[in-house]
């Protein structure tokens, strides 16, 4: 049961990529991946929220288990995530107003990004210790950023190509995601 942190990191980053293999965080993946310049900051912001949320969720889980209040887990996790998103929002608004505007509605929506809650829930379900949880959330966040950046780059290229008009929009993005996901399955061997 005791996996090494490096193993968990690589697994979350590539072999079990959050977006392309576990289907977490698809809404921002399809929504913000239009342009490379917003895709990357979005990935970084989500990674940061994931790290904070995973840290708090780890502490909170110890507390809840100590008092045998496991049924409150879901509610308390979501409150933690909402507050850390608020934190990121305030920091961004102060230090980079342009980026704040560019991300727009997708920033508060990190709260309802299932990848963030997914990190907290999976680390609890798999009984990761502190180092493992951190590796897991950082790998997950980096994997999310990687998928987002790859997708945005491909979509920027596709703007210039001649696509049948029926297929434009979400259908095309989904087909692209499918092909990317196929490619990521090639990493299955290095995870394990």
């Amino acid at each position: 049961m005791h996996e090494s942190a490096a193993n968990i990191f690589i697994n979350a980053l590539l072999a079990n990529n959050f977006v392309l293999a576990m289907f977490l965080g698809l809404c921002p993946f399809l929504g913000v991946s239009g342009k490379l310049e917003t895709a990357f900051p979005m990935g970084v912001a989500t990674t940061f929220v994931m790290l904070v949320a995973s840290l708090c969720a780890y502490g909170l889980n110890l507390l809840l288990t100590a008092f045998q209040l496991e049924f409150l887990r879901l509610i308390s996790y979501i409150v933690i995530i909402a507050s850390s998103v608020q934190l990121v929002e305030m920091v961004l608004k102060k230090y980079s107003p342009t980026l704040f505007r560019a991300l727009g509605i997708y920033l508060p929506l990190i709260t309802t990004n299932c990848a963030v809650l997914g990190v907290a829930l999976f680390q609890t379900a798999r009984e990761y210790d502190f180092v493992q949880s951190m590796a897991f959330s950082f790998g997950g966040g980096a994997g999310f950023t990687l998928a987002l950046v790859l997708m945005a780059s491909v979509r920027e290229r596709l703007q210039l190509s001649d696509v049948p008009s029926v297929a434009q929009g979400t259908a095309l993005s989904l087909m692209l995601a499918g092909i990317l996901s196929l490619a990521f399955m090639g990493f299955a061997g290095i995870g394990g």
Partner: protein
Amino acid sequence: MSQATAKNWDEFMEGIWKQNPTFVMILGMCPTLAVTVSAVNALSMGVSTALVLIASCGLVSMTRRFTPKEVRIAVYIVIIATFVTAVDYAIQAISLELYDALGAFIQLIVVNCIILGRAEAHAAKVSPMPAMINAAGMGVGFTIGLLSLGVVREIFGAGTLFGVSLFGASFQPWVVMVLPPGGFFVLGAWLLFFSTLERRKQRKQRNLAEATQNA
């Protein structure tokens, strides 16, 4: 009376056809792709989401007069999380096998954008009855969306439907269908299908308009 019934019916049908959460609004993608490897999983996920949706929209609508505007999103989230916890424990009690198959995705119903979206955009503005009818329509629409993916993926990926073998032993399953890429491909194909239908309808209407003009 009949007029009221007709209005309720329209409200109900809206979520199933005109504003189908899966195919028209493209909401709630994560569970849509993750749990639809078989028709049974898809159906149970759809039903649990629908139950949470109806209950939370009802409660959001009942408390809409006392909820301060500034903290409404937090209130909605807590309401939704409460019902999801209930559904989570209920599924665990009913079938442990199903619980293991759906995994964390039952708890992830909390962050399903359909529910928060409905609470914010509809339930917070109308009285409980229409809110719940609308939510029921959305829930059924979402279940139909999940089923249409689950059925296709199970038939091609395993050669079965609801666990019943369809093609006999000689069938060679397309393994890719039950793997992650299959989910993306099937949903993409469904969207293509619907946009082709839509296009055909538009062309027909245009032809008709031209014909009447010429006449």
